[in-house]
């Protein structure tokens, strides 16, 4: 029972952070219909930003979040204005290959500057601390903080999209680009804004994740794939969908824990021998595959 509950808790905690990772992808896709393969690389940049700022200034990693957000926003706007804008004039395949190229570029720049070794944070008020909430459930403080702050950031973006004039214009552009332009909403500026917000939300997620996840230049790919699965599951362009699907995918990554629970429950020896942890992320892609076959527009999507 303890394994079951702690797996659920762990799944939900990581799910909240994953939802924030996917948020940026779904916003960019929703507004511009562009699939951003470089999404995970922006997460990596957020992780390095958090890591190096914390290490060089000695301040707590959690205080680096505003800087990560700023770096992400500027980087997003820059990528749009200097690169993606031109891709939009080309065919769909140019956009796919273009962001794929951006991914390779960012990854290799990181490799050049930071080297290929894993780096991890070893200091910070939360690193290494944990809460024992009883029933043998131990919550690492870093994960708890990352989950809470992810939800906070997620909520802030959601409120911005729902309540502010600019945010509403962004939502309208995502819903119907042509109609939004007939309202006098400037399409180009909305694209740049989508990239700014989309990238800054994923760099925030990176600066949160680096508290308990080591970073190297290749870390992005895993998260790109997970974010794709979340966005597909929740529905392309849907903000609430990203949150819900993030939690679902978080739980899916805890399938090995559930497996252990069942192994104990049935005390089945053959189950013990299945190397479930090796297949941890496989289930995410199985879910991705199933949703693509059964309901391609996702649970909350309005496109496709």
């Amino acid at each position: 029972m303890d394994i079951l509950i702690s797996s659920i808790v762990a799944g939900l905690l990581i799910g909240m952070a994953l939802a924030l990772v996917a948020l940026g992808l779904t916003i960019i896709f929703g507004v511009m219909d562009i699939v951003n393969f470089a999404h995970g690389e922006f997460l990596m940049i957020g992780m390095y930003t958090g890591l190096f700022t914390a290490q060089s200034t000695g301040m707590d990693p959690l205080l680096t979040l505003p800087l990560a957000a700023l770096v992400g926003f500027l980087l997003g706007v820059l990528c749009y204005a200097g690169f993606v804008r031109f891709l939009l004039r080309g065919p769909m395949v140019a956009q796919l290959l273009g962001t794929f190229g951006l991914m390779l570029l960012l990854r290799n720049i990181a490799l050049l500057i930071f080297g290929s070794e894993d780096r991890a944070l070893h200091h910070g008020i939360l690193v290494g601390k944990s809460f024992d909430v009883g029933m043998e459930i131990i919550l690492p403080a870093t994960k708890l903080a990352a989950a809470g702050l992810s939800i906070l950031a997620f909520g802030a973006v959601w409120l911005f999209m729902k309540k502010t004039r600019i945010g509403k214009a962004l939502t309208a552009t995502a819903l119907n680009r042509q109609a939004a332009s007939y309202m006098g909403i400037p399409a180009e500026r909305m694209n740049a804004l989508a990239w700014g917000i989309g990238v800054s939300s994923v760099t925030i997620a990176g600066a949160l994740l680096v508290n308990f996840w080591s970073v190297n230049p290749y870390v992005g790919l895993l998260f790109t794939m997970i974010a794709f699965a979340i966005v597909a599951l929740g529905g392309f362009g849907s903000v609430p969908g990203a949150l819900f699907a993030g939690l679902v995918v978080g739980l899916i990554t805890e399938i090995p824990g559930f497996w252990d629970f069942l192994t104990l429950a049935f005390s089945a020896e053959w189950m013990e021998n299945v190397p479930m942890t090796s297949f941890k992320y496989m289930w995410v892609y199985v879910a991705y595959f199933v949703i693509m076959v059964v309901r391609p527009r996702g649970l909350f999507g309005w496109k496709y």
Partner: protein
Amino acid sequence: MDKMLLEIENLVVKYGGLPVLQGVCLAVKTGETVCVLGSNGAGKSTLLRAVMGSQRATAGKIIFEEEEIQGSRTEYIVRKGIVYVPEGKMLFGPLPVEENLLLGAYILRDEKAVARNLEFVYGLFPRLLERRNQPASTLSGGEQQMVAIGRGLMSNPRLLMLDEPSLGLAPLLVDEVLSTVHSLKRQGMTILLVEQSVREALDLADRGYVLQTGRITGQGTGSELLQSDIFRSAFLGI
């Protein structure tokens, strides 16, 4: 003579090399209601989309209030005062009716003016007030057309362009929508109307143009058009 609000001179639009508009000339004076009649595929919607800048003009001029606007961005043209109510309504489906209307006032910064316009639209279409919190996509076709027109009115347009407002509506609703257009006209709104329902459009408009395969083939007042041979052969089949 009244001042020209919109002048279109020798407008040419091509889709992938194929000409859709082949030198269209058209003018709308301030306070006038002008209709463009034509069958499916004559280029009516293309004409309005070219004015909005969402369809690139190959040649020709579009002059609004003595300023050439061909090649300008859509958002600039909207700010200049031209509002386009597109065919097929193009609502923001999942958003509530009132949110749709308020987005129509995006270019207005003055909140009092927005509130005043909202009140005006609800006065024009009381049914929208009842349904203000419903997602726009859950409304009937006629009500959606009301949202589309109301949304267009929210920014105090100087020229209102309506693209087939009666398309796909039940006859009773066609009357309702067109009588609203009529009351807007009486209040002094300048309207450029594109329609397939010839009789209704001519009843409403001060003047009309006939657009056939990308060319203006006739123009005049309603009664003049109804008498002319080209018009009778094009639309009435006699």
